[in-house]
């Protein structure tokens, strides 16, 4: 045997067979592969791209921003396991380096048009056109703009900050009030921009409850002396490990949960914030001075989601994109070949987004196989 590296039984045996009996190995050219256009490179878009490419389809991944997964990159630790958000983001980006995936950064999409069955056209803002066999919307969410709840004083009093700003402080591992002191008391307020008729959002954003518990614990880890209160209407601890985290927050970190919605905040002369709420469990109004008031921002449909859902005629509730039905066809739309994944549909946790992206990938592969 000349070539010892070659394993017996494979190519050598084939080459002994007459030509007609040899297995046909088809090398698909670029042109022959179905092309899937994915709009939005957050966790949903990235995960779907990876899964679809692994099934030998060509993926065009469009992202409006220069950076991928901006919302995820803004996070510090992930609930419920307190794993590192950056590590997860980096891992996904690494997996994107696949020969069948092309990423187009800073490429906002204007609209997508179905030309005929199995043929879509994707138009970029700068008027380039890409052809695709199927399109997947992963245009995601935006956080609620806290200025719309004027009575909570965001943008007016320095002591009022958002959950996003606090997350950034965690990333820098430095929590302080504007005067540079470490806060003696921090109050979290749930449901800002969610479950609120006044801002037109009746829905629950699903992740802010557990995020507040996570942030409160992180705060206590960094500043054990700080008193931490969480004002809630309901605590929705629906996911794996969430309820247990809530219990740990109470028992180990002495975080105090008060049922009642803060409906007024005012600045104090010393740079703090005075809040008013009711402790609805004893039926008494309550006033409290705090160094920081953290507003737990809800999720709304992103600009991209609203615009594309509208131009494709698939607007669901509150400007999110609407799927065909919530059970068996949640990745489908009433447009053939147009699919949805992640928070462009509704608020979702990261865990659910990844699962949803995988399910969308599978639906798309099934769809392409019928071509």
């Amino acid at each position, binding site marked *: 045997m000349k070539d010892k590296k070659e394993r017996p039984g494979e190519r050598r045996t084939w080459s002994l067979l007459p030509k007609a009996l040899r297995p046909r190995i088809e090398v698909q050219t670029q042109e022959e592969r179905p092309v899937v256009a994915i709009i939005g490179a957050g966790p949903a878009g990235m995960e779907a791209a990876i899964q679809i490419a692994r099934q030998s389809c060509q993926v065009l991944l469009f992202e409006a921003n220069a950076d991928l997964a901006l919302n995820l990159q803004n996070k510090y630790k992930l609930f419920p396991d307190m794993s590192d958000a950056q590590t997860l983001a980096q891992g996904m980006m690494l997996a994107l380096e696949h020969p069948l995936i092309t990423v187009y950064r800073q490429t906002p999409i204007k609209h997508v048009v179905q030309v005929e069955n199995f043929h879509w056209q994707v138009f970029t803002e700068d008027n380039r056109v890409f052809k695709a066999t199927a399109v997947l919307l992963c245009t995601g969410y935006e956080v609620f703009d806290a200025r719309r709840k004027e009575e909570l004083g965001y943008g007016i009093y320095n002591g009022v900050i958002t959950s996003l700003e606090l997350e950034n402080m965690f990333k820098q591992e430095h929590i302080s009030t504007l005067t540079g002191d470490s806060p003696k008391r921090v109050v979290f307020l749930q449901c800002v921009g969610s479950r609120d008729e006044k801002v037109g959002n009746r829905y629950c954003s699903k992740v802010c409850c557990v995020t507040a518990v996570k942030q409160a614990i992180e705060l206590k880890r960094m500043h054990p002396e700080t*008193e931490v209160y969480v004002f809630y209407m309901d*605590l929705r601890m629906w996911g794996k490990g969430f309820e247990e985290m*809530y*219990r740990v927050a*109470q*028992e180990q970190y*002495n975080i*105090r*949960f008060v*049922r009642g919605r803060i409906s007024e905040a005012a600045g104090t002369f010393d740079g703090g914030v005075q809040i*008013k709420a009711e*402790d609805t*469990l*004893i039926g*008494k*109004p*309550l*006033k*409290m*001075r705090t160094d920081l008031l953290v507003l737990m921002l809800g999720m709304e449909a992103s600009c991209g989601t609203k615009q594309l859902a509208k131009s494709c005629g698939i607007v669901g509730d509150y400007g999110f994109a609407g799927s065909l039905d919530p059970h068996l066809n949640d990745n489908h739309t009433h447009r053939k070949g147009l699919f949805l994944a992640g928070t462009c549909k509704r608020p979702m946790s990261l865990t659910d987004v990844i699962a949803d992206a995988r399910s969308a990938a599978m639906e798309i592969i099934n769809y392409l196989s019928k071509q």
Partner: protein
Amino acid sequence: MKSFGFSIAKPRSLEIDGESLERLHRLEEKEPSFKRCFNCGGCTATCSAGQFTDFNIRRVHNLYRWGRYQELGEELRKCMLCGKCTLVCPRGVNLRHLIVSMRELLNEL
């Protein structure tokens, strides 16, 4: 002067400051399981004393949380330490011991 029956009322609202929590910390040291309470009201529903009076054990320990001790001394005497509340609590709060500890701490006042 004619009286219309109005007077100046004291504000009802709870004003939360640092000192009022000192006694809460001591209670939590005596009975750490108290921190786990999530206010389900199971204890109140089964409470023997609560069947015949307006005694509400869940409300009582919440008032203690906020340092409203004046309202509690009388209330706590209504409990007969039967322990039914402890049996039903889903978060494993040792209510009977909690009540005894509250009484002890309030006696210091």
